[in-house]
């Protein structure tokens, strides 16, 4: 099976390790991964900040770049939600697995692709740590990932999954919200961080590096010693190293 990877601008620029983990993981599961180099950004930041013209241009660019592919895998809940939920209204794009359509490309967040398309929940990973999982808003309420990430994590050998209190509450990132309404954003993050600390976990995991950048940035400022890791990075780790 040959799929295209949409790495997202944030992962591409700031978190290349996540992208490498996705490639490692998918190859291990027998998937042929392609990286169309003309890709850049899905346009979410522009659209959600009130710049639909610029965002629309990026959306059309995305559709051109991925036109020939059957499936696009995106290691970010919010970017996947942007493409699948917002493109149809924004530029009239036909996304294969958006409601009421059936065409290519189909767009999947990583855990959806693993569980729904490949049909695996045990990806052969090994990660002997206490981990808590933050479901992130767009994964939870936009894509409705449900318990897919939890199933994947539960099948990681050595991993102890600790429930996160108030998990479904927003961390306060919200893209430019974090800057435009910094005080509310910080107050929301303080509560999220408090909940993360209360779990005693060593690692906070999520399917979105933007939220992790926000929570992780606060955790680091507080010198909490808790690491944040993208879901892909945990799933890519095996007993003998990658």
């Amino acid at each position, binding site marked *: 099976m040959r799929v295209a990877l949409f790495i997202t601008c944030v992962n591409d620029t700031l978190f290349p390790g996540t*992208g490498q983990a996705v490639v490692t993981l998918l190859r291990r599961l027998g998937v042929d991964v392609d990286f169309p180099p003309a890709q850049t950004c899905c346009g979410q930041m522009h659209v959600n900040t009130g710049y639909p013209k610029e965002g629309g241009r990026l959306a059309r660019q995305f559709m051109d770049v991925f036109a020939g592919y059957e499936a696009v895998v995106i290691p970010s809940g919010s970017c996947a939600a942007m493409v699948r939920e917002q493109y149809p209204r924004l530029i009239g794009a036909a996304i294969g697995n958006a409601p009421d359509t059936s065409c290519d490309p189909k767009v999947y967040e990583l855990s959806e692709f693993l569980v729904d398309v490949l049909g695996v929940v045990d990806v052969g990973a090994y990660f002997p740590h206490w981990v808590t999982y933050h479901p992130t808003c767009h994964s939870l309420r936009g894509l409705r990932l449900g318990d897919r990430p939890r199933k994947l994590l539960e099948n990681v050998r050595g991993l102890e999954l600790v429930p996160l209190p108030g998990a479904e509450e927003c961390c306060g990132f919200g893209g430019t919200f974090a800057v435009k309404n*910094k005080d509310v954003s910080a107050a929301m993050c303080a509560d999220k961080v408090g909940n993360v600390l209360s779990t005693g976990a060593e690692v906070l995991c999520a399917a979105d590096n933007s939220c992790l950048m926000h929570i992780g940035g606060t955790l680091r400022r507080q010198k909490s010693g808790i690491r944040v890791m993208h879901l892909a990075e945990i799933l890519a780790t095996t007993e003998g190293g990658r």
Partner: protein
Amino acid sequence: MSKTFVGMPAFPKNAAKAVQDSQLRFNLRKATRTIRNKRALVVGELADWPGLRQAGKAIKDHTLRNLDRYLIQLEEAVTAAGGHVHWAKDAAEANRIVADLVKATGETEVVKVKSMATQEIGLNEALEAEGITAYETDLAELIVQLGDDWPSHILVPAIHRNRAEIREIFLDKMPDAPPGLTDEPRALAEAARLHLRERFLRAKVAISGANFMIAETGTLVVLESEGNGRMCLTLPRTLISVVGIEKLLPTWRDLEVFLQLLPRSSTGERMNPYTSTWAGATEGQDFHLVLLDNGRTGVLADEVGRQALRCIRCSACLNVCPVYERTGGHAYGSVYPGPIGAILTPQLRGMSTELDRSLPFASSLCGACYEVCPVAIDIPTVLVELRAKARHPRAERLGMAAAGWVFTRSVRLARAQRFGGRMRRLVPKRLPGPMSAWTDTRDIPDIPRESFRAWWDRTEGGTR
């Protein structure tokens, strides 16, 4: 809208102040969490909730699409039942109509049932200017009125006050408050009962809003808890109801949907203690219905934004909103706070002030509001739509244009990444200018030496 909010600063500034108020944070957190759980419990009891929600949404959309026809039908039904129907295109006209109706009765006092529409038009202040005193009778409205305060929640306007503060207000401002008043909610409710009893029994004119109006039958519907609504709707000789034109439902049958959606979403009860319905002049009363536009037809003209008119004012969106929970309602500078206020206020008032322009940005777009909305208003989508209409700051426009330019060609992005990679050691811990908003409370991630695409190029997708 009520003039008290004129000249308020933008949302982020109000919010910054509010999040520092630990008493407010505590009160809000406690109250919103209580109601959130109650709502979840009673909504979970109904297996057909998603069906009710879709029906509620569609009934409202169908009504809005045919609003002219249904308003005329309502007018005919109310008139046939002995009521009088008045049309007000804006707040000033509605206030004028009500003031004239009250004056015609010769009375100088009116009792009021809690109503968002009359708050929106600043009716109490307008009546006061005409020498008419309006007494709020809902407990929370009474707390707000006595405390010379602003409402901060649609359902519970005094949600920002805890029992101790309410006791203080009562002892301070209520002449007949019992001297040994405790802060037990039961004692506080009892004090309000005694305070308002005489006023109810002698009131000659009452002013209400309505939760629903039935076009087919001319029936008005008011849901309430305390019985102050029944007192106002039943005892006085003259009843004046001021109702937004979007509060219409086509048929009596439609209530079977909304009498399930509203109480469970609003107070988290299977049913609110009292619901009154009446058609036209009832039991010998004079009945006047004032139909209010006040910007609603403008909202109706917006294809995306018009869904805000489905709102049944349950306030479930406020109770789940992480932003509202931390800022309270005052920061929104409107009688409509929270997520619904963030899409309703800028549409009703326009976006000419800094405050109104800032409201669509008062959300992290987490989507919790949409999920609980009983009429499925896609609040995040409307917020994004309104953000596109707002005038943006110049620095932001330039930044967004630059980012857009970089993202339009992957070679530009790659070049920017290479530049960032070379500068990675020079990035300060605290960023200057607008980006300091990020580094005030968070570290920025380490800039990697090599971007993903550079790694892919160099290693041919990790194969070398």
